[in-house]
């Protein structure tokens, strides 16, 4: 067994830290705790963790500033704990380089899934996830072939670019602006993205009205459901 994965939990609420410590430890993670932003930054410089779980509402400094500071010298995966109905805060955190978020209150399954996805993407070279499959939808990124239940689906170039990007970050939320930047490489209206997503869903979703692969994070962006 290699070194356990270290999680730095930054939250000022002792009960939250306690249940995270207990649950994450039980899952085999090593947990380091911090109750304030400045302290968290110190710890980060000392012995860098493998992943940071950061609450946006800290007593000493704005969680977004902590994130900005982290990103100045570290690419460590950061999962944000955000409050409900703060989609703008989530988007800003993601644009500042956060890897993902969970909304308080959250279930442990959800947080652990996010942590796993973030770590996997961080330590995986681009292209390592050459083939995505969730059992029905298969995306071969090397040969640029998309199949649904074994049947090849014809996608336009831009549709494929979007799907490819989602596959490369499978399980992670991608903001509208991120997708627009990566695919269009020029300032573009979010309406275009919505239209392409709609077309994509028509082609690959079993029920485009109730998508199961390309999930909508309203007000934030899109997330491709985890590969099975």
């Amino acid at each position: 067994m290699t070194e356990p994965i270290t999680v730095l939990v930054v939250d000022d609420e002792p009960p939250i830290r306690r249940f995270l410590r207990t649950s994450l430890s039980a899952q085999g993670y090593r947990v380091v705790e911090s109750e304030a932003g400045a302290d968290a930054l110190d710890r980060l410089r000392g012995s860098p963790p493998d992943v940071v779980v950061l609450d946006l509402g800290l007593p000493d400094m704005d969680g977004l500033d902590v994130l900005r500071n982290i990103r100045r010298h570290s690419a460590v995966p950061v999962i944000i704990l955000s409050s409900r109905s703060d989609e703008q805060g989530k988007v800003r955190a993601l644009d500042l380089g956060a890897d993902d978020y969970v909304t308080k209150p959250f279930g442990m399954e959800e947080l652990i899934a996010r942590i796993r996805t973030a770590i996997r993407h961080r330590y995986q070279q681009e292209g390592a996830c050459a083939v995505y499959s969730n059992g029905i939808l298969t995306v071969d990124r090397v040969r640029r072939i998309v199949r649904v239940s074994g049947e090849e689906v014809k996608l336009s170039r831009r549709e494929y670019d979007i799907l490819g990007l989602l596959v490369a970050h499978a399980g992670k939320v991608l903001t509208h602006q991120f997708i627009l930047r990566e695919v269009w490489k020029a300032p573009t209206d979010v309406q275009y993205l919505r239209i392409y997503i709609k077309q994509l869903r028509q082609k690959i979703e079993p029920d485009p009205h109730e998508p199961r692969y390309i999930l909508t994070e309203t007000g934030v962006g899109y997330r491709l459901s985890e590969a099975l």
Partner: protein
Amino acid sequence: MDGTITRVEHHRPQRRVRRARLARRIWPYLAAVLVTAAALLVSVLIEKQLAVANVAVVFVAGVVLCATRWGLMPALLACTLSVLSLNFFIFPPIHDLTVEDPENVVAVLVFVGVAIFVGRLAAQARADAALAEHRAEVNNELYVFARLLTSIDDLDELLTLTARQFSERFDNDVVLLLADREELELRLSLPPIEALEPLDAVLAEQCWRQEERGIPLDGHASGRFLFLPLRAANGTVGVLGLARDGRPPELDDDDRRFVEAITDQVALAVQRLMLAADVQRAQVQAETEGLRSAMLSAISHDLKTPLASILGAATSLGTYSSYFEQQERDDLVATIREEAERMTCFVGNLLDITRVESGTLQLHSEATDIEEVIGAAARRARRVLGDRRLVLQIAPELPMLEIDGVLLEQTLFNLLDNAAKYAPPRSTITIDARRVHDRMMIKVIDEGPGIHPHEVNRIFEKFFRSGHGSRQRAGTGLGLAICRGFVEAMGGRIIAGNRTDRPGAVFMIGFPTLKVASAPPLPLADDD
């Protein structure tokens, strides 16, 4: 230098006024002369045919005319001139002021007596008529004003009207102060001033407390304003202040009567409006209290119930863990989870309704795909819907709306959650979205018992829970209030109704197509 110019300019209009006043004063006497001359002319013309006494009647007519038109003094002048004319031109010897015939001496005396008597009567009648006319005018003005006052139900409007009435009639500066609890407060001034000068403030206060009608007119320690109390049945509701040219104006008796009549009317109206405001405040307070008790019962129920379950399950697990089978442990854990989720939902609703009501709701409107938002709401609602079937009927090619997708998703979730509470298991819930004329319509249709006709209008009220079927449903009574708040914040409307084809409720959200996002031209060219 400047002073001279000012004085010259100041005098010029005064001189014109004085000249006009002089002309007005002289004119009646001039008229009396002219009337007498006319009478003389007529007398000379008819003298040949008629007796001297009849001729005298012509002059009497002239005197009466003067008396009725211009008053006593011009009439006396006319009388004197008439006597002289009679004497000089009519009674022999003509062209001589002596009277030969004793009969004519009597005639002259009678004439003078009649002329004076009639002249005085006529002059009195004229004065009475003028006074009556003036009073009628004032009364009419008061009547119109009083009518206006009764039709006003806004205090500020009332004060403005009052101030304007005074400033127009007397060409005054006007201030209105109203008593608010134990304080006299400057409510309006014309022309606007920030505050009363200290002396005026004291005088106003005195006027209000002592209910004395203003300060002495000779004005030792005179401020700028003459203050008059606004007296109503049970006390002085405020004070009216008048000033002219920076000094308290002098009011004659007529003015005073007028001012008093008006201040009484205003006082009554102010009192009426204040009472109305009190009643309204009491109503609002009663409603607030009703709402507060509803909220308290909701909070105590919706927070305490899950807390009790959670605490019970957790202590059981802690204390008796070893006695439980795995199945029982799982049940307790499931209880904790479900109840915590219920509480989460309730707290979320409380936050949402607070955002709606405190006005801190921030809209992040952008081009939104309705179908996508419906899909997201449907996914979120899966668990609360249980085994109920959800059918999505979404018309193809719906335009994008310029709205806040997060708020719409929460609205749809709340509607689905509500449907899940009332619709029986294994029934079908339908979301139908389509464009109808110039509106985007989203309907959530269930197969529950429907909404009682009496409750259709109240269903969106806070803490309103349907008593339909005499079963109190679980829930906070906030979900639908939030829906309405969110939809209206986005410029849409939401209404509730019943299905016509079978029992069931229909909630319909409508957005005007004004909300349709202007579609960008599709850049299909750079695609493939």
